[in-house]
């Protein structure tokens, strides 16, 4: 998001990144009640809201840790929008529910909207990667898991009973194979379009 400056609420993102109990508590006290209000007004209950909040906070944590998330809008707007979208997806999945969406608490914030769009695309890409990873052969799956968990290629080679050079080469081939499968999938192409 070139041009937009980082919002002071980035402090919540930093707090999540260091797993600060005070910051997490503060998010629950300040921002979660609004999400609970929205979900309970829209065919959900407190338990459903609890799950949505946890899933979204974990996703924000991952986004911050691995994609360097930088907030250009108030945390409240971003967090609420992600929770709302997650809940609307849940409702869509259970198509039997007849739902009237109550939108009174929603305020539109352009930056939040854009960040949430980017977030959604990342989540969907991750689903494609997960699906394709499952389609890899077991040898590749085991090797990739070991190389990314253990980090030291020497240890990986020892654990898998192969030479260092083989482990290294195989790692790049397996990543190449997964990359090819993902890039060729129509779902991924649609996301990139």
């Amino acid at each position, binding site marked *: 998001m070139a041009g937009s400056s980082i919002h002071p609420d980035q402090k919540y993102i930093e*707090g999540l990144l*260091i797993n600060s*109990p005070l910051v997490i*508590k503060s998010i629950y006290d300040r921002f979660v009640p609004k999400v609970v209000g929205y979900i309970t007004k829209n065919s959900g209950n407190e338990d459903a809201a*609890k799950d949505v*909040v946890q899933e979204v906070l974990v996703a924000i944590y991952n986004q911050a840790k691995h994609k360097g998330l930088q907030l250009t809008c108030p945390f409240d707007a971003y967090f609420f929008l992600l929770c709302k979208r997650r809940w609307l997806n849940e409702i869509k999945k259970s198509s039997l529910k007849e739902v009237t969406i109550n939108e009174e608490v929603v305020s539109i914030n352009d930056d939040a909207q854009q960040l949430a769009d980017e977030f959604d695309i990342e989540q969907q890409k*991750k689903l494609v990667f997960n699906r394709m990873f499952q389609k890899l052969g077991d040898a590749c799956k085991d090797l990739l898991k070991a190389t990314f968990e253990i980090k030291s290629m020497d240890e990986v080679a020892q654990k898998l009973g192969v030479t260092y050079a083989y482990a290294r*080469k195989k790692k790049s081939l397996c*990543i190449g194979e997964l*990359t090819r499968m993902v890039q060729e999938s129509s779902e991924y192409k649609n996301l990139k379009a």
Partner: protein
Amino acid sequence: MNELDLELYEAYLDNTLDSEAKKAFEARLLDDASFKASFDSYKETSDYLSEKFTYQEDLNAFENNLKNISKEHFTKKASPSYKTEIWKYAAAIVLLITIGGYFLMDNNEPQYNDFASQPTISLVQRSSGDPMAKKAENAFNNKSFKEAINYLNELLGNDPNNQELLLYRGIAQIETAAYGNAYKDLDKVASGSSVYKNEALWQKALGLLKQKNYNKCKLVLVEIPPTADEYNKAQNLLKKL
């Protein structure tokens, strides 16, 4: 993607290319658009795998923390039934009548212990698993504040501006009556812009309450803004003073 390129991508990401090979690689990224596109895709996959398998410990710690706080939050917020509520009010009235006289006669000021509740802290989240952080966390949560201060001193030696550590050391110092040092730490946090700012003001006010310095305590309490989580308890204490 040919095999040689794949090995090259891996070596570049792994930082095992020598400086000349690295320069050549970067020059090719600039000149050859299809090489760059292919490398970007490879890197995206590598980043995905890193997210999936690396730092799992950190993620587990985060999820556990989240579950506990969520549980606490929703239990606290659970609204009691009407009947329970009535009994609660009845019990509260009896309690008030019983102890009210004592307070009226004694005209007591609010007490530190009525307001102080030290947070449970959690410092060991990073994959480095710093043993010193674990010791500090355990000592603090077991209310061995002197010990906690020693460990926090060491942690702050390596990371002197860590606002979270300064806040916790401030709290521990109030508990051990080292007020001067406590206020130095808490003032630093309160004058910053971290998320711990208002908690630091609240803890300083509690320290002053413990010292029975009621006027200074009031001055600190009024600094806590209405947007802060600590605002309601600060107002509550202000009224009692």
